[in-house]
């Protein structure tokens, strides 16, 4: 089936089985390997991408779901002004450890900051509660997002 959608700012068409998992379309058909498979059940958030601006787990979505919609992966978000700031804050506090879950956190955090940008610990914890991390215990992840929110405010970004 021809799937026409917007991927990382570009209009694209790909011919794949309609039920092909979105994560496989992104990784195999478009070579975007930044999106990772942690569980294949929608239970860990490592495969998160933005669909029409909202973070979703691509391992339990299908090619047919993105027709005429906008998909943004970590590769694209990392190059935006907010994405660069967010990544720099994560890096500054040395939040990353093994890194496998972090593309998913970048996507979820990106959305949170775009939508709310509140340096509120409880709100941030809730927004990221669909993303599992085994290495960090989440402490520095929350710190990094708080820091980003503060910097966004200071710089008048959104």
């Amino acid at each position, binding site marked *: 089936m021809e799937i026409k959608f917007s991927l990382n700012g570009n209009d694209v068409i790909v011919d794949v089985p309609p*039920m092909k998992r979105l994560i496989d379309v992104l990784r195999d058909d478009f070579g975007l390997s930044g999106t990772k498979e942690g569980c294949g059940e929608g239970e860990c958030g490592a495969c*998160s991408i933005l*669909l029409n601006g909202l973070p979703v787990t691509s391992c*339990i979505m299908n090619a*047919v779901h993105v027709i005429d919609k906008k998909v943004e992966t970590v590769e694209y978000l990392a190059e935006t002004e907010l994405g660069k700031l967010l990544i720099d804050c994560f890096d500054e506090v040395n939040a990353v450890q093994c890194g496998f879950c972090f593309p998913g956190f970048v996507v979820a955090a990106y959305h949170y900051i775009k939508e709310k940008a509140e340096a509120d610990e409880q709100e941030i914890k809730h927004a990221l*509660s*669909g993303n599992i991390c085994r290495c960090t215990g989440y402490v520095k992840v929350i710190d990094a997002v708080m820091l980003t929110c503060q910097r966004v405010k200071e710089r008048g970004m959104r």
Partner: protein
Amino acid sequence: MNFYQPKNLSELFRYCEATDGKKYFLAGGSDINVQLKKKIITDGTVISINHLKELHGIQELDEEIVVGALTTFRELITSDIIAQYFPYFQTSLKQFGSPLLQNVATPGGNIANGSPTADAVPLLLVLNARIRILAKSKMHKLPLSDFYLGYKKFNMKPNEIIGSVHISKDAERDWQTFYRKIGSRKSLAIAKLSLAGMKRIENDKITAVKLAAGSLNEYPRRLKNTEAFLVDSNMPDEDNLRKILAEDITPISDMRSDKDYRFEVCYRLLSRFLRIE
């Protein structure tokens, strides 16, 4: 597995009538894709309906709010209309799944999947929600409480789909509300048990009460015996309340939890809710 994407509802029903075999309706995909992966679904046709505009949207009518079956939970949680009329429902839904799942999961999917652990169903039951079922040449409404006939047995034909969920605008008015979901953690948790309740008190007596439990029966349902017992009775004694509750819930032991624990905690939550404050 076959696949079909109808352009509109009429095409959908024409196809369903003309095609044999099992049919699975693809909404957000969060249930179907896991079932495909685990080989719970192995053959039949997946029919994509997520794009059908008729199934989306929140509408305010004179007497009721109409929620398209494929409205996402996120849309419900952020909707001003839902906030205005059903704040209890809206707040309770925040415990569903995770923020990521809320962006794709839908009440239609949650209801139609028929899991005993469905989070939205107990809430909709105490709100006396009705669902509109769409078929080829007709549609009809029925109370959600009449939808389940057994474990994954639905009061709906294979060629019909849930089109929308209807809740009266006054569904929450003048009710004291209660909702607890007990999971093994605060997010990404399948309910071990859940209890939704609404009650009215007058002169220290319960004049009306609605209770619905999740994960405690083969499908979420109203605790009818307990409701009947509680109305017009003063604070019931512990033994009698336990006895009557046992007529309404049949908890099991499984990997997630134990039978006795589930019963006891349901009882405790119920007692807490019934306390006249």
